[in-house]
């Protein structure tokens, strides 16, 4: 019996699956192609029947017009502020919390960690209304505070992710430092953090994605269009009489492109983060 590989497909099956994979991949990728090509069209071209794949003359100027016809710089600035604050707070708070849940032995640790995990399945809708009322009473509605302050108090998914990583770091390193008289904070900052750059990178990426892509948070908590994010700004112009579809598609490319670049550069951290959520399945 000859030794076969992997899932033991016969040559015919390999051909079929390769072709299938290629067809499916094409189906999944073609909307990106369409969006990119359409972002270079004049608005009228979007409505030609039957659909035209290529713009007659690529309108590169769409990418300049967006600065005039859409408050791009303002919304981009707002989004960037939120992204930076949320990344900093996510790394600072979740590494501390995960350290407490993995590198120090204390009574009740595992029980509280189950509470952390339980909050992962809590639907946002359950807390959404009281949070809105709470922020309303604090006069935080219409400011960035509801979109930034909670991030300083940790997030279940990041705590879980970092804790798993910290557990894989041998405790002997911490004991040695403790014998030398190092405090917990010193062990955290000088030993654990430098060893955890892969996990921290994953947290930074997911924190960026979460904030960059967030729509519901800004929708509920922002009221002043001077503070709108790119997502909320885009959604708002869809309600105009003239939704400027060409601008929206151009914006779509601009908003998607940075995410794709980051993905291609840091792919393994994405896959790690995604696969990690499933391991415990």
């Amino acid at each position, binding site marked *: 019996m000859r030794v076969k590989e992997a899932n033991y497909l016969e040559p015919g099956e390999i051909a079929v699956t390769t072709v299938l994979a290629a067809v499916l991949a094409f189906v999944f990728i073609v909307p990106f192609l369409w969006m990119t090509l359409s972002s270079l069209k004049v608005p009228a071209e979007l409505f030609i029947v039957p659909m035209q794949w290529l713009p007659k003359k690529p309108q590169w100027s769409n990418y300049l017009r967006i600065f005039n016809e859409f408050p791009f710089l303002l919304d981009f600035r707002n989004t960037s502020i939120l992204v930076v604050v949320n990344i900093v707070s996510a790394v600072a708070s979740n590494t501390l919390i995960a350290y407490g849940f993995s590198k120090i032995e204390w009574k009740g640790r595992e029980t509280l960690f189950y509470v952390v995990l339980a909050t992962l399945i809590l639907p946002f809708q359950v807390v959404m*209304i009281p949070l809105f009322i709470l922020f309303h009473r604090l006069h935080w509605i219409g400011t960035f505070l509801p979109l930034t302050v909670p991030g300083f108090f940790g997030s279940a998914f990041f705590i879980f992710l970092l804790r798993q990583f910290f557990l894989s770091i041998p405790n002997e390193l911490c004991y040695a430092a403790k014998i030398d008289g190092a405090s917990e904070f010193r062990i955290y900052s000088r030993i654990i953090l430098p060893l955890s750059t892969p996990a921290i990178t994953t947290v930074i990426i997911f924190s960026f994605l979460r904030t960059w892509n967030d729509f*519901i948070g800004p929708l509920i908590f922002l009221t002043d269009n001077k503070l709108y994010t790119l997502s909320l700004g885009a959604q708002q112009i869809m309600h105009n009489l003239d939704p400027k579809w060409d601008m929206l*598609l151009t914006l779509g490319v601009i908003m998607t492109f940075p995410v794709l670049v980051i993905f291609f550069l840091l792919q393994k951290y994405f896959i790690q983060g995604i696969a990690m959520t499933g391991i415990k*399945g």
Partner: protein
Amino acid sequence: MMWTRRDQRNGLLFISPWIIGFLIFTAYPIFSSLYYSLTQYNVVDPPKFRGLGNYIDLITTDTVFRTSLYNTLYMVVFGTIVITAATLTIAIILSNRRIKGLAFFRVIFFLPTLVPLVILCILWIWMLQPQTGLINTFLSYVGIKGPGWLADPHLARPAFIMMFLWTSGGAVIIYLAGLQDIPQSLYEVASIDGANLFQRTFKITIPMISPVILFNVITYVIGIFQSFAESFIITSGGPNQATLFYSLYLYQNAFQYFKMGLASAMAWILLIIALFFIALLLGLEKRFGYRQ
């Protein structure tokens, strides 16, 4: 296990941000949401206690509530079937290690999950256009006149399932990770016994990764119950309330009609339904699933 006083103090100190955040942003809202669900509350006037009135209204008289529940259950049942079948098929195809360019394919299926939600909605409004949309354009290439997906109450929900399928690459990645853990010896034995691809898939692959299937299904079901931004942006719940999903109606009650009490009651029913589905799926898993 011995705990020293110092470790106890340090441990709690390190997780103290989470404790504070949990109390303010999770525990307090859970309990006040339960309280609001028993009141009539429009934010401006103080809450008026009305016992189980909101729950009774929703279940007995609110036909829109019933519609939104039906729409969401439709997405749960048909969406789970279609999306699980499709993502699992893709993962099984890709798990064939002799396939050329696996890394490339894996990236392709993952890319749609990176598209920001609002852009996803804008893109799919155009994908689903009856005349110029990508889907109907491809249908016209094979001689089919495509329908007005978002104008037809019977097709709007399937259209949403297509959109959700497009963004299910995360499930494919998770399935691929699960498939890698299946011992190759099982396939060897099956192969010697002359099992074909279908037999190997249904007798080995699916039973072996049933915990992963379970995880993805739970994730999808909870996601479906919570999703409203897509229907809020794309259809506003139309046509004829066909995409008025549970959480969209909840959002409308809270932030458009300012019925905070009613919306809170909906949130609690949502929580109970979500817990029910988790318990159900875990029960099924215990009974029929593969155990190591």
